[in-house]
């Protein structure tokens, strides 16, 4: 009994000791971050030291400390790109504010993360206020299958391809493959991915019509002529039909329409 009691006491002591150590490491992480954050223009040596020190201390810290550390680094303009990539690839619950705000992230780092990370990470990047053309093109070109690797519907677009005839061939091929299941309620039509929806809403909010057209055309299987045709109708009726057909919610459609087709009020 006594032995079992003392073992339990030792276990409890070790547990508390472990907790104490974890807290110590949390303090080390915050100290590392705040001392780096205090440097106005870190030298190469200081940056190198931070690159070496940050990941192991981060790994050993508690989730709460990680969140605080990443939030603190989100406003720092000189975070080395290695650390930007490292943080950007962490769990979205921690990485989101960094992906959405960090002024330190280069276009290359953002593009790498867009190409390698999942949809949640990409959506966090879409919230950035300062996306360059290069990053926007990477966002528009990136394709994330939502539920499976099997191409969905007849609007499948191969990532990044700008060859219109190839896209049309792919579309027709997908249409033919879908012909057997035309009875489905969407008649073989694919739905906008969350990423495409987020991009369309972003471009509408910022009045970026050319980028809206490009994203919209891709959602239509790369048919730029049809997309241009739909957008050229100033009343917005055809655009509304196309967005609803592609599965955009009525709330998002109501947000997008007046921003892309301001003449909608003239519609009789």
């Amino acid at each position, binding site marked *: 009994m006594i032995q079992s009691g003392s073992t339990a006491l030792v276990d409890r002591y070790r547990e508390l000791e472990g907790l104490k150590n974890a807290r110590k490491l949390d303090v080390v992480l915050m100290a590392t971050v705040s001392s780096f954050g205090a440097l106005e223009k870190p030298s190469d040596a200081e940056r190198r030291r931070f690159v070496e020190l940050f990941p192991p201390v981060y790994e050993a810290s508690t989730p709460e400390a990680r969140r605080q550390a990443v939030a603190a680094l989100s406003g720092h303009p000189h975070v080395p790109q290695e650390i930007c990539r490292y943080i950007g690839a962490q769990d979205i619950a921690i990485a989101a504010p960094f992906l959405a705000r960090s002024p330190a992230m280069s276009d290359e780092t953002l593009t790498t993360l867009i190409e390698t990370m999942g949809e949640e990470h990409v959506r966090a990047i879409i919230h950035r206020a300062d996306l360059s053309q290069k990053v926007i093109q990477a966002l528009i070109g990136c394709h994330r299958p939502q539920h499976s690797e099997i191409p969905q519907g*007849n609007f499948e677009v191969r990532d990044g391809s700008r060859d219109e005839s190839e896209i049309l061939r792919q579309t*027709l091929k997908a249409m033919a493959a879908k012909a057997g299941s035309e009875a489905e309620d969407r008649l073989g039509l694919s739905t906008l991915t969350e990423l495409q929806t987020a991009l369309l809403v972003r471009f509408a909010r910022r009045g970026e019509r050319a980028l809206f057209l490009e994203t919209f055309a891709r959602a239509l299987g790369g*048919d730029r002529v049809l997309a241009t045709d*739909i957008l050229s109708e100033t009343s917005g009726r055809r655009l*509304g*039909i196309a967005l*609803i*057909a592609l599965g955009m919610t009525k709330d998002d459609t109501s947000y997008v*329409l007046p921003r892309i087709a301001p003449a*909608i009020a003239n519609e009789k």
Partner: protein
Amino acid sequence: MSVEEATEKLVQSLSPTACIEELLAWQSIRTEQQAASEKVPRDARRAGPPER
């Protein structure tokens, strides 16, 4: 009518099924147009060079 009212009225009048059918119809027309425009140069090539 304000822009908001007009948008709301338009969006509420759109039925997803009807929209899907309409978009598919536009796509079919486009596919036919595309096929026709590809056919013309092919036929022209088959006809050979114009006679002098």
